[in-house]
């Protein structure tokens, strides 16, 4: 039997694998299995908008250890720090402020700061050790998640324990002397009972400026535990981030001291009911605890805090020291039910969300002495009532029509008027041929002012909702190994809230046109190349890069993974100052010593050409700082 085995196997291959025209080796079969079983194929949701998926395989080859490693190349955007040193994902050309229209999810839970409605204060460098894949939706007008309105939705999906069955430790260290210690354990205990645990401690050291006066170093501790019991899922997350907050509240950008400490704890329960699991109930509690301490010389403008900043300016009344301790809580109940037939899917749902904003302590000092105060704003409580409906109808098996409507009512205390508005969207997806696909949306969205924006306003009660209307279309073509996608988006924003330096509505409507072209060529399942080019046209002054793109090369073999990434952002001019083009080049090489041990080396911003954050000082001087350090990271990873 042994002698005839080879001849037989050859014959078997020819007979049984004729459908793919070749004899498939076990390694190739495993790769194909991994590809079709990719969890992102299960989770992506067409009705949320135009999307980009970063798969598990891509995250691995990229050595993407934290969220920043992924978001820095997102098309039509820049990922650069704001004046608090917090990385912000901002649309091309706009300013890195504290954007309220980006929603970040970890599985079913949305993690924006309760104070700012912005997720990045604690999550801009969130550890990806427990994350399987990432989806980014250009989802203006998406309603099915039932949360605050959004323009961009970033969804992080945690690892599936049945696919892990392992413990992993990771140690990373860089030439900047920052480091990461990480532990991930994900296993199935019994059928339908599983857990995923992540513990991570990270430090990030950045260059300081003005003789060490400003810095944006970060120390973060991250804990995540997901426990699944049949159709019940309980998530517990704790994040603690301490930051040197860069320019902070110093108008001259050279504070004497500038620090924050932030904690985020959430407990999230998701229950799926009914035999088809079409009824989903979600209950969650979020607790944010924050302290901030800011100090600046009076000659530099002191500390800017709208509540104490007098107008007209009297130097004796300007704070030179400011300390704040704040507690914020959020309680959410969400329910949705999906009704499906052969050609139609109807989703209805609603949510109630209570947000509490309590100032624990405020202390400040002026040239004339110290003071404390009890309260900054009378707005301490907002209840958001939401009802939504989304219908997807298959006109034919190649044409899908989507219509959605979400109605919100914001009940606010402290004499603030009630806000009521709606989000509406029409979408259409069609396969024009087997390889050509078109997808388009018309949408109308509103963005409410956050606690933070209200507090930063001279007259928070008069702040209006931002109202956006827009349209987007995506044309995708795929033939064999080639994929091409052309994307266009138009957005018009009325009453946009900006910091001037107080937050206020801008009367002039802002209009933006975005165009992008993406191309991917797959040599095979282990080697591929991705190219992106984008351009934006805005009717406002450029505050960041308007054009850009990237080139990414993914290569994998049995023993090595190689990643090359070149991110381009075009330069721009601001108040007469030229900001140069940037070419952020990153290279990662992984050597798989064995099936359980890897050593990795990653060079970040090797050309020392990083996109810049630009800030305008009171005297209309312009200062700029590179967003990314040139550094080399060494990683050791062991699987048990």
């Amino acid at each position: 039997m042994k002698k005839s085995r080879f001849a037989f196997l050859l014959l078997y291959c020819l007979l049984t694998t004729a459908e793919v025209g070749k004899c498939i080796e076990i390694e190739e079969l495993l790769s194909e299995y991994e590809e079709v079983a990719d969890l992102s194929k299960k989770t992506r949701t067409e009705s949320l908008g135009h999307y980009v998926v970063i798969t598990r395989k891509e995250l691995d080859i990229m050595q993407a250890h934290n969220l920043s490693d992924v978001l820095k190349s997102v098309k039509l955007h820049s990922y650069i720090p704001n004046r608090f040193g917090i990385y912000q994902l901002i649309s091309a050309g706009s300013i890195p402020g504290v954007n309220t229209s980006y929603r970040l999810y970890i599985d079913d839970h949305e993690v924006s700061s309760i104070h700012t409605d912005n997720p990045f204060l604690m999550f801009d460098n969130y550890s990806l050790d427990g994350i399987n894949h990432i989806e980014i939706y250009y989802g203006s007008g998406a309603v099915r998640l039932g949360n605050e309105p959004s323009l961009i939705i970033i969804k992080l999906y945690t690892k599936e324990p049945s696919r892990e069955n392992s413990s992993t430790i990771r140690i990373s260290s860089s030439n900047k002397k920052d480091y990461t210690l990480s532990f991930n354990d994900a296993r199935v205990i019994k059928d339908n009972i599983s857990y995923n645990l992540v513990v991570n401690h990270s430090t990030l050291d950045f260059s300081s400026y003005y003789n060490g006066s400003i810095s944006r170093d970060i120390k973060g501790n991250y804990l995540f535990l997901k426990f699944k019991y049949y159709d019940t899922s309980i998530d517990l997350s704790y994040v603690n981030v301490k930051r040197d907050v860069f320019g902070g509240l110093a108008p001259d950008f050279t504070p004497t001291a500038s620090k924050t400490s932030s904690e985020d704890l959430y407990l999230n329960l998701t229950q799926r009911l009914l035999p088809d699991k079409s009824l989903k109930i979600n209950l969650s509690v979020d607790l944010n605890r924050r302290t901030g301490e800011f100090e600046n010389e009076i000659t530099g403008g002191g500390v800017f805090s709208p509540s104490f900043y007098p107008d007209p300016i009297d130097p004796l009344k300007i704070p030179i020291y400011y300390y704040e301790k704040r507690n914020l809580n959020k309680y959410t109940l969400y329910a949705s039910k999906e009704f499906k037939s052969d050609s139609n899917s109807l989703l209805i749902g609603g949510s109630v969300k209570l947000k509490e904003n309590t100032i624990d302590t405020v202390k400040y000092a002026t040239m004339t002495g110290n003071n404390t105060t009890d309260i900054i704003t009378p707005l301490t409580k907002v209840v958001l009532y939401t009802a939504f409906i989304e219908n997807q109808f298959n006109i034919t098996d190649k044409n899908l029509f989507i219509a959605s409507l979400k109605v919100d009512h914001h009940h606010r205390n402290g004499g603030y008027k009630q806000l009521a508005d709606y989000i509406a969207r029409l979408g259409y997806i069609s396969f024009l041929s087997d390889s050509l696909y078109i997808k388009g949306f018309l949408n109308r969205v509103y963005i409410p002012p956050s606690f933070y924006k209200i507090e930063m306003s001279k007259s928070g009660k008069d702040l209006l909702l931002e109202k956006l209307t827009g349209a987007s279309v995506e044309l995708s073509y795929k033939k064999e190994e080639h994929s091409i996608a052309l994307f266009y988006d138009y957005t018009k924003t009325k009453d946009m809230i900006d910091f001037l330096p107080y937050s206020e509505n801008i009367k002039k409507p802002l209009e933006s046109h975005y165009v992008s072209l993406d191309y991917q060529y797959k040599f095979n399942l282990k080697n591929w190349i991705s190219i992106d080019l984008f351009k934006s046209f805005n009717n406002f002054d450029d505050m960041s890069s308007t054009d850009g793109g990237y080139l990414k090369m993914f290569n994998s073999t049995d023993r090595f993974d190689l990643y090359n990434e070149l991110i381009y952002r075009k330069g721009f001019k601001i108040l007469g100052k030229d900001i140069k083009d940037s070419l952020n080049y990153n290279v990662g090489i992984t050597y798989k010593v064995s099936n359980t041990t890897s050593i990795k080396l990653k060079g970040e911003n090797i050309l020392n050409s990083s996109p810049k954050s630009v800030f305008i000082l009171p005297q209309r001087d312009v200062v700029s700082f590179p967003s990314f350090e040139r550094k080399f990271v060494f990683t050791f990873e062991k699987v048990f």
Partner: protein
Amino acid sequence: MFKFIFLILLINLSSYGEDNLAKYEAKIIEKIVVDITGKSNPKICVIDYPSSYIQQYALSLILTNCTQADFIISSSDKRSDYNKPILVVGSTEFSSHDVVGVVFWKKGRPQVLFINKNIRKFDIQLPEEYRKYIIRKEGTLNVKSDS
């Protein structure tokens, strides 16, 4: 980076499906059993493993009872009294000396392993392409074997 879905357009647009996963799992089982036995239509029996996967997607395998089978496919850590080679699918833990191979998920990837001691017990000659999947040390990749 854009991901395309060029199957038919359904409400839940996705090329992911349990059927698709079952198909690939069954194809892997089929290939391993055929390669190891050297037979064009080997006989197998299943223990705690869906026979429908085999019937639908592994057409060269013949389902029979375990006494007559060339190979046993099992998804659980159960001892066998049949003295037949066992392929465990979906579990990383086993204790039987008859387990010659394991198909499982670890660290987000599907993997196969063959246990050297147990292979020798059945005098199995693995084709060259499987050599790198043979484990000679106990505890490798956390597969628990008392062999």
